[in-house]
């Protein structure tokens, strides 16, 4: 979706301002937002692509004025409401008013280390062969879906060269919708700065973007 999350190439946000001490968390609620997001993610009620879509679906003004852990908390609320696991009234009061939903898996403390060490690999086996070889000339498609996509606006319609074949990975556009993983080949594609930014790009520089096969056409 063409939401506020798709920031590449925008102007006007000012300089990058690192914090002097950089605490991992700045307040108790940031810790809670982080841990609740991971623990609820483990329940399998949604996948990582659906959770990214929930965050980027925040109204743009709210997205851009929120810290990242606030975006996570708001995204988590959206997912819980969509699945009927909580109600608006319950969120407002912090008290359960209805029966709990059915949850297949609950993350327990003794399993945390093992669960994190396993992570969530996105590569899937296939008998298919990648259509594009390293060095292939490609052009990113132009599309503007209202749903989730990982094709950023700044590369749509632009020409690039396949730098590397990563493997056969879960396709976020479909997975976020609940249409299954629909895995396909994933490439790192090199775009010259001049192709992306015209005379405002420096000719020596390049941006590499990870793109699935269906985002690409042969050029």
């Amino acid at each position, binding site marked *: 979706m063409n939401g506020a999350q798709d*920031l*590449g*190439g*925008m102007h006007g*946000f*000012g300089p*990058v301002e690192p914090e002097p001490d*950089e605490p*991992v968390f700045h*307040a*108790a*609620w940031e*810790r*809670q*937002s982080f*841990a*609740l997001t991971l*623990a609820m993610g483990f*329940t399998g009620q949604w996948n990582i692509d659906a959770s990214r879509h929930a*965050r*980027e679906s925040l109204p743009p003004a709210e997205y851009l004025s929120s810290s*990242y852990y606030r975006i996570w*908390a708001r995204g988590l609320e959206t997912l819980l409401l969509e699945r009927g*696991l*909580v109600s608006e009234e319950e*969120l407002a009061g*912090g*008290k*359960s008013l209805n029966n*709990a939903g059915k949850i297949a898996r*609950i993350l*327990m*403390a003794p*399993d*945390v280390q093992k669960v*994190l*060490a396993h*992570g*969530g*690999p*996105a590569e899937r086996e296939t008998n298919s062969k990648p259509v594009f070889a390293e060095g292939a000339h490609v052009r990113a498609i132009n599309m503007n879906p209202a749903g989730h996509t990982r*094709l*950023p606006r*700044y590369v749509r319609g632009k020409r690039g060269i396949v730098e590397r074949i*990563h*493997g056969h*990975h*879960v396709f976020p556009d479909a997975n976020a919708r609940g249409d299954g993983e629909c895995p396909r080949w*994933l490439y*790192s594609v090199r775009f010259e700065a001049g192709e992306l*930014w015209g005379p*405002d790009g420096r000719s*020596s*520089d*390049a*941006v*590499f*973007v*990870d*793109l699935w096969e269906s985002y690409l056409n042969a050029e």
Partner: protein
Amino acid sequence: MAHDHSHDHDEGSALSDTALRVRALESLLVEKGYVEPEALDALIDIYEHKVGPRNGAAVVAKAWSDPDYYARLMDDATAAIAELDFTGRQGEHMVVVENTPDTHNMVVCTLCSCYPWPVLGLPPVWYKSPPYRSRAVSDPRGVLADFGVSLPDGTAVRVWDSTAEVRYLVLPMRPDGTEGWSEEDLAALVTRDAMIGTGLSLTPDQAAAAAAE
């Protein structure tokens, strides 16, 4: 770490709307039985205290010291990093990109906050914020200037936008004057920003000055 679920003591008496709302969310999810409080504490403890950029620095120092390890790292970074027991969530598919006198690499996630947790820990606020995410791809040299880094004219910049589940780690250049150093001493020169590509590794003089502070 003991994590107090009933007091937001580090925010003072006036809790923000967000703090109140997240606290209510936690109470609700615990009451519903969807989350276990001890598991929440364990998650927080791991990412606040145990996983961080010292992991990545160990990988870099080993690559600088051991040519066979360097070759394995460039060939299959996920497996080579797993040799040091850094695995799992947000590091399932690792790629290492190497800085040279001709090429400087920088990593961003323009669409969200993708970052290699097992080697760098959780990302700093600036990495997830609009100023960095917007300009890293269109004005990487301007972003580097924000960090006080200026590259030689002949150095090309390669920016890696983490749009999939592949996570990138920059292998910075080994500083001059470190011949024969131990991996432990080398790792002290490897800053977090050097592994994102918004900084360079420290020179021995810079490291000595930082240690004296």
